[in-house]
């Protein structure tokens, strides 16, 4: 094992909403330069778990360490400041706002007293558009409203935004949902590029082919607990699917 502590370490995480226990005693680690896939049925607790990491929810119990430091996620802003960015299922874009306003939402570049550095925001968005988002259409500019983009282009904006702020951990919640095949390819490429930059990601997707394609490690969540942890090197895609089916059937039987 490396002397460097894992990027993210969660110990004994519990989360209840009222009387409903959504997460029961979750231990999860993400190493540097690693893509970890969270797999599980709808309602297994995946989204709750990542919203705890990003600071949207507070855990009922448990400890979280980020870069070796104990953290208590207070809110999204604090998590973003630590270097955790998320691409949510809902994409977290505001459709009637300009591209540049979306890229810098909640992280505005300012000059003094909170006044926007419009030139820098537009310039950086322009650069991101051409390099990362793959937005090459002449019709789209930094001033275009996001509503004019296709589903894949919107996802590109959300991912490029997460990468732009130099996060060490990027969480992707169902990033390929509703995308065409070409768009999905691009998203998977984005995801692999996270590892190439030495950053880490938590990847959630219902499509097991996508998951197997990009992840180094699979963590299967079932009804609020971790049911299985598998390394990509120790499992074939077929074996992974088999494991999922077995778990699903045992769950249905009980």
């Amino acid at each position, binding site marked *: 094992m490396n002397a460097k502590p894992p990027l993210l370490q969660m110990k004994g995480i519990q989360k209840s909403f009222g009387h409903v226990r959504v997460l029961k005693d979750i231990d999860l680690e993400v190493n540097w330069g690693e893509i970890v896939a969270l797999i599980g049925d709808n309602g297994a607790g995946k989204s709750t778990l990542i919203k705890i990491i990003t600071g949207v929810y507070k855990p009922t119990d448990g400890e979280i360490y980020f870069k070796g430091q104990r953290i208590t996620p207070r809110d*999204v802003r604090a998590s973003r400041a630590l270097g955790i960015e998320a691409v949510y299922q*809902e994409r977290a*874009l*505001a459709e009637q706002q300009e591209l540049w306003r979306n890229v810098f*939402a*909640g992280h505005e570049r300012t000059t003094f007293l909170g006044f*926007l550095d419009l030139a820098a925001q537009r310039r950086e968005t*322009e650069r991101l558009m051409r*390099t990362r988002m793959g937005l090459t259409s002449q019709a789209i500019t930094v001033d275009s409203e996001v509503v004019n983009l296709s589903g894949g282009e919107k996802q590109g904006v959300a991912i490029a935004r997460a990468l732009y702020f130099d996060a060490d951990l990027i969480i992707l919640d169902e990033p390929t949902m509703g995308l065409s095949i070409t768009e999905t390819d691009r998203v998977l490429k984005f995801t692999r590029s996270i590892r190439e930059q030495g950053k880490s990601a938590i990847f959630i997707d219902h499509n097991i082919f996508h998951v197997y394609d990009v992840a180094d490690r699979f963590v299967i969540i079932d009804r609020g607990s971790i049911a299985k942890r598998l390394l990509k090197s120790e499992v074939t895609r077929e074996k992974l699917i088999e494991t999922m089916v077995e778990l699903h059937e045992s769950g249905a039987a009980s």
Partner: protein
Amino acid sequence: MTVETTKRLPLRPAPQRSFFHVYRIQVSITALLLLLYVVFIIGDPKTYLSFNIYRSFMISIPFFGLMAMAATFIVTLGEIDLSFPSAAGMSGWVFASSYIYSGSFLLALVLCLATGALIGLINGLLVTKIGIPSIVATIGTMFLWGGLVNVVTEGHGIPMTQLLDDPLHALFVGQLFDRIPAQFIWFVAGSILMGVLYKRHRFGSHILFIGDNAESARMMGIHVDRVKILCFVIMGVSAALSVVFILNQLTFFWATTGSGYLLTTLAAVFIGGTSVFGGKGTMIGSFVGVLIIASLEPGIIAIGLTGFYTQFIYGLLITISVAVYALMLRRRD
């Protein structure tokens, strides 16, 4: 369409959208204002080519103009405030009674603005922390503060003619160069400040983002509740500052002070092109909207119609402009 190939694409300048397209709402409303003035000048050249009518506009427009600018923040959030006339009434009573009691303009001013801020804070807390839809919450507080003014005044007014001798009086309603009413300068300065906050400041960016999609804003770490509360506070303070102009101009506090501005103020915002659905708006539009609303009543009389037409023409303009903007801003998805 891949990362590798797009990296090699040269940066090229984005095609410029035409000025008219980007500012279509601001251009349309300014054209409407100019059109109205052409009609008024033709209808009554003697009145509309003299300075006097414009001076009287500059005296009365700030009575509701600042509130329209502040309401633009609230409407952009996708919220509404119906209680600001009562906020004006309540803070007006605080100004009048504390001025009469203490004789200190400054103290009365501070208490008045603090009252407006407190009323706004309460609205903001009701909407964000208790979770009452703003239209319902502010109907409640509209009656609450309006009713409280009735209770404390028992319907009686407060004469304040000694204001005329106060050195601070001229700061609010004096005439600059014997021509420009001070309140109009306050109004223009306040409008510029709010306009800059709206489009050139982090605060305005957050307002637009929240009004567009509050859930997205929350996920991006924007403090949604804090921004909303602050907007209601700005609304309350604007109502309080407006009533300072009104009281200094009239030197009399009526139990009904402030009432009557609700619909004209909101009409100015909507004629100005701020979207009822939130997320889109323009301060320039609201500013011109204020000028249009203020010009209509005297204008209607100037062109020879009776005052009975006023409300009808308000209604006509508001309905048409809101319909036109809805078509302009229709989402393309």
